């Protein structure tokens, strides 16, 4: 369980995160939505200890993340940031192998190689595993990064805008994979996402942020609601129910 209590963060005396408290249960997908500058990325970076919080408490399974060894945390929680634009010439397999670093410290054992193979097959990258990252399309590269996270084999997976720059087909593919990871492997996934329809169709719960504060959190059906969305986005958003899914029409 991820547990945040009264978390604060400010830059230049301006609060970017203000008094956020939050509980995330295991085995779910939680989407963080909200307008630009709402503090979604900052929040997810704090949960994954990339940014230090100013105040409050963040615990994962009861352990304070700031008092847990870096290497231990790397086996429990992984984060994929939107800015992970790697300009190194590495093959997919090399990148995925780095996911095993917290366990192997570079010396890959038989078990590590099995996990790497598994992750590559899971993301259907077997045929192109020896291609360099700079030769790949955006969708393939994103899949390679997710394969690395799978190889890292952490209970908690945090993704910052994983659908950025992807077309519909690849976006759906990624979201289906995430759903599979939760359903089949019992992972807990937290993601920042801009497309509220993707959030609506694939997540168990949604946390809506605005100006660094939580506007609403709860089950997907409670957040994808005309009044709530009006609050968050200052926009009239029509909600249609199609095949038991709530689809927002905002065009």
């Amino acid at each position, binding site marked *: 369980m991820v547990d945040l209590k009264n978390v604060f963060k400010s830059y230049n005396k301006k609060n970017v995160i203000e008094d956020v408290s939050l509980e995330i249960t295991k085995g779910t997908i939680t989407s963080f939505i909200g307008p630009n500058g709402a503090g979604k990325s900052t929040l997810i970076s704090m949960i*994954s*200890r*990339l940014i230090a919080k100013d105040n409050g408490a963040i615990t994962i399974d009861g352990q304070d993340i700031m008092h847990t*060894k*870096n*290497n*231990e*945390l*790397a*086996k429990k929680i*992984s*984060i*994929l*940031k939107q*800015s*992970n634009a*790697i*300009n*190194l*010439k*590495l*093959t997919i397999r*090399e990148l995925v192998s*780095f*996911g095993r*670093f*917290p366990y192997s*410290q*570079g010396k890959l054992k038989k078990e590590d190689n099995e996990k790497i193979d598994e992750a590559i097959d899971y993301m259907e990258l077997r045929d192109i595993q020896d291609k*360099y990252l*700079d030769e790949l399309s955006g969708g393939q590269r994103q899949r390679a990064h997710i394969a690395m996270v799978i190889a*890292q084999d952490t209970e908690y997976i945090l993704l910052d805008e994983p659908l950025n720059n992807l077309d519909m087909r690849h976006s759906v593919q990624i979201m289906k994979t995430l759903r599979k990871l939760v359903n089949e492997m019992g992972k807990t996934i937290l993601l920042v996402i801009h497309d509220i329809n993707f959030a609506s169709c694939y997540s168990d719960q949604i946390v809506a942020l605005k100006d660094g504060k939580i506007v609403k959190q709860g089950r997907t059906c409670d957040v994808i609601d005309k009044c709530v969305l009006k609050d968050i986005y200052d926009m009239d958003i029509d909600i249609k129910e199609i095949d038991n899914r709530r689809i927002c029409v905002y065009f």
Partner: protein
Amino acid sequence: MKIRYLVIALVVFSFASVFIGVSNVSPLDLFNLTEAQQQVLLVSRIPRLFSIIIAGMSMSIVGLIMQQLTRNKFVSPTTAGTLDAARLGILVSMMVFTAASPLQKMLVSFVFALLGTFIFMKILEKIKFKDAIFIPLIGLMFGNIIGSISTFFAYQNDLIQNMSSWMQGDFSMIMSGNYELMFVSVPILILAYIYADKFTIAGMGEDFSKNLGLNYRQVVNLGLIISALVTASVVLSVGVIPFLGLIIPNIVTIYQGDHLKKSLLHTALLGAVFVLFCDIIGRVIIYPYEIPISLTVGVIGSGIFIYLLLRRKKYGL
């Protein structure tokens, strides 16, 4: 390129290097050397060979590590102020301790090189405009500032003559007894190999490293210490060999990728082969005189460097 070809080239060039020179030592004499020939081999030729191989390997690897840590393909001891700072260090050691031993000189030079590189890294953190070409330009300017400080103090203390001897890399002065400090590089390079994975991860940025539980700061600092120490020992014994740390890693990246575990050995071997080749050319081109190595490497190296720049897009450097 196979590692085998590099090893063969290294052996062939090493052999050639030992038997080229003004005093005549032919491979045929190897089993019945006169005393004079034996002296030439042991005092001059073999030390020269060792120093070339170590300098070639270590400067190339230092370049590779610096490029990885700064995430910029155009950073090397030449373009980050490391070389100039190391030189200033030697100058200071000569001014402060008039009879400085080589070891003292190296330590002072190391401290300066480390400080210089560290300041460069701090500048990198501060600037917002992280363009691939802009960063080495800043490094060159920074290096030139340090260089002019060195020149100023060298003038005041009548050390210009002395200083120019480490401005220009030159293997002709290498003799047994004055180059042994270079062997400091060997264990350090082995350490670099052990840390190869960590350097590669650090090259993907602080967030990426943290996600994998790697202590980013510690790895970067170790990389800087390795770079400064190796640079100081090479500058002190051989002098400045420009461009080496820049071109060799870039060539290896093209065919071997950026995973240090895979590219480190290639970089080391190619560096040694390249310097050996340049040294042999420098020795035969105006035989029986010699051209200093910094000139041959500079000419050939800058040619290759310009070519790399022009092909930059294609290879995604």
